């Protein structure tokens, strides 16, 4: 099939950026979306033009590196699918496709389709962990965890940190991302002692980094390639309100 692409090109964070038009010819339905772009790039290089720059790595839908908004939807039209796992059989001959980077204040464009997502690392650094040093821990089966809790923790832990939730949110909120980590650790006994400090520190950092708040649009859940549920945002809110009285006047709680 033959397609017309409208691709966001932006030289750097200061550049204004614009959509440019390219033709993708003889696209096979077995290609992944990124393989289709690879072929377009090969042609551009042979013509002496600069290839389109985009982020990708594992191409197995798990590293969370790929980050393209396709026809207005982060990761494209297929539910629970990252761009790298989106295949061209989802498109039709003659389609026009618009490809843009994640758009959010906290994710400045680096170049073309690449954005800077280190703000999400800073949220994890603020408290998205269990504070345990290596060595000297108890036997693994000494901590019993009900299967339902372990399963719920795993549902949350599946988050790949791609940032599609932020890109989909009208407020550019990272609430689904934060709630996934808070939710995972809140469900486990290991995470409890520092739960109050964790939820406050991560939420505060989220706002400091330029992400918005949640106003229940649920676009994040719809865009999430791993199907993380907004129920974790409710869990995050409960954790936050439980934490507030504990932390009043005691930042070290």
């Amino acid at each position: 099939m033959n397609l017309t692409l409208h691709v966001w090109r932006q030289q750097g964070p200061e550049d204004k950026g614009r959509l440019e038009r390219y033709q993708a010819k003889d696209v096979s339905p077995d290609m992944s979306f990124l393989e289709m772009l690879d072929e377009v790039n090969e042609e551009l290089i042979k013509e002496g033009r600069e290839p389109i720059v985009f982020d990708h790595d594992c191409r197995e839908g798990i590293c969370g590196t790929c980050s393209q908004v396709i026809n207005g939807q982060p990761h494209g039209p297929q539910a629970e699918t990252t761009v790298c796992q989106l295949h061209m059989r989802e498109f039709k001959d003659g389609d026009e496709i618009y490809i843009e980077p994640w758009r959010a204040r906290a994710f400045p464009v680096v170049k073309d389709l690449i954005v800077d997502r280190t703000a999400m690392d800073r949220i994890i650094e603020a408290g998205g962990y269990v504070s345990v040093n290596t060595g000297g821990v108890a036997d693994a089966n000494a901590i019993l965890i009900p299967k339902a809790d372990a399963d719920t923790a795993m549902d949350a832990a599946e988050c790949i940190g791609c940032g599609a939730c932020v890109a989909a949110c009208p407020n550019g909120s990272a609430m689904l991302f934060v709630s996934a980590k808070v939710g995972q650790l809140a469900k486990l006994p290991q995470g409890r002692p520092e739960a109050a400090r964790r939820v406050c520190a991560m939420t505060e950092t989220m706002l400091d980094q330029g992400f918005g708040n949640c106003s229940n649009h649920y676009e994040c859940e719809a865009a999430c390639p791993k199907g993380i549920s907004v129920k974790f945002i409710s869990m995050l809110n409960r954790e936050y309100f439980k934490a507030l009285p504990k932390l009043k006047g005691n930042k070290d709680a």
Partner: protein
Amino acid sequence: MILDGKCPSGPLADKWDNHRRDLKLVNPANKRKYTILVVGTGLAGASAAATLAELGYNVEAFCYQDSPRRAHSIAAQGGINAAKNYPNDGDSIFRLFHDTIKGGDFRAREANVYRLAQISNNIIDQCVAQGVPFARDYAGYLENRSFGGAQVSRTFFARGQTGQQLLLGAYQAFSRQVQAGKIRVHARTEMLDLVVVDGEAKGITVRDLVTGEIRCHAGDAVVLASGGYVNVYNLSTNAMGSSVTAAWRAHKKGAYFANPCYTQIHPTCIPVTGDHQSKLTLMSESLRNDGRIWVPKNKGDQRPAQQIPEDERDYYLERKYPSFGNLAPRDIASRAAKQACDAGLGVGSGRGVYLDFTDAIERLGEDTIRARYGNLFDMYQRITGENAYQQPMRIYPALHYAMGGLWVDYNLQSNLPGLFVLGEANFSDHGANRLGASALMQGLADGYFIAPYTIADYLARTEPGKASSKDDEFRDSAAQVEGLTNKLLAVNGRKTVNDFHRELGHIMWEDVGMARSEESLRNALEKIPALREEFWNNVRVPGNGADLNQELEKAGRVADYLEFGELLARDALNRDESCGGHFRVEHQTEDGEAVRKDDQYSYVAAWEYGGTGKTPQLHKEPLTFENIELAVRSYK
């Protein structure tokens, strides 16, 4: 030269304890005077960086990804082994050790593998304490499953995302140390040279992938945890950015490269569809617990799988290996699939065999299968457009893991003092074949529990801050890296980097793939240098070096593969026997099993760089087996 692996003497079970007692310590007040450079932030790198920082050292961590959380360890699906014997089915440290040595076709060091089996239990404890959500049963205890090459259930897992959960555990421990100011992260930064001062590794030269800036970093020790090299085959299950570059550049600075010909071909990948393909996708080996592998008995049988009656199917693994059946180790299952396809029995494009869940669905119900493997079935459907609940999956072997790597001694130190190599980047624990669920184990064992002890022993003998990035060695290194970048940009030829990578991959797969012969290897050794020469005359790298330039990044990596591929083929030619992931067609039994030559090749081959296109020098480290009897591997 005979190399010394420095394995401690004494009884196997006491070696590591005794050795740790002898290792020197660094006083807590002195630890903060030392800086350690960690290259790579996967399981091995992130766990090492986190642990070293906890101990009080200053750590500078480098990765080419935008965040340490994206290292390729994240893609490991199946699980991690440990000798906990929770299921009470007869597992023990010795049995895990024995299975690993045997699985590796008796080409790994006894002492290292035993230590790995011992430490495996601490890893599970550590990860649970970090909040890794391993699978649990209804009583709240940890659940286990089995993997290829073992008859016990010793594999711990977190759905089909075990690598992801273990990596995020390590990344979180790492992030905690970033917050504490003990780790400085340099993301989107690629190591392009190792700096050696007075024979010791004291720094690295990197390129900032966003600005193009070439920078030098000095430290008191360098930890390389930069992963494996099987992208030399172009198509593999590795991430697109995975490369040999960091290890190869260290090799060019004097570090020996060991056993490069040991590459693992994984039996359960989704088959290739066409020339456009950039990447192969693995289906977890755990699928072989419930899936049955077969091909039609008749050549050219074009009927859909469901219409082929039972008596016209060949369940070849169950037939050839009745006691291990579909759970035969990876090298054996891969070769058996290739033999079936070479005999004209392949399905789909002819390069595929069926992995069939019909029986399991009848026995257990679709819901159980969905609960166990649902995400893998979904992934399969996205890629192939087929529903594997209704028709069998098609699978074919693909390059997956490197068992070779930089040579290290028992302390995980290379022959260059101060250069420690961890995880897939070193050669030490898997021998000629890696058993399932043991790569995650090795990465974390090295990073959490081995390197932090052994690096201390090195640092205790060195004065902190001996090298500075203003030194001549650093200036020379930066100039060399800059020169290489400019050279790549100046060629301005007609073929793209991908064209060359595909051509190299084709040579490697055809001549140095699942089965090799003296003839095919000599052929590769002629074709690779010719392709390399063409590359340097005809590659086109657009753009410039002072910018984010993904073609330039790729070009540097492919340039290294064009040198490294030759070493891999040379090592394969030198090893005139069959073992594990290295199968020489000259050495097989009548029914196609590998024939080892223990009297001649029971050694680690460690190569010393001699210059591009020049013959490298072979050093041998003899392998001695005191606790295990060398035997022919049998899974029948």
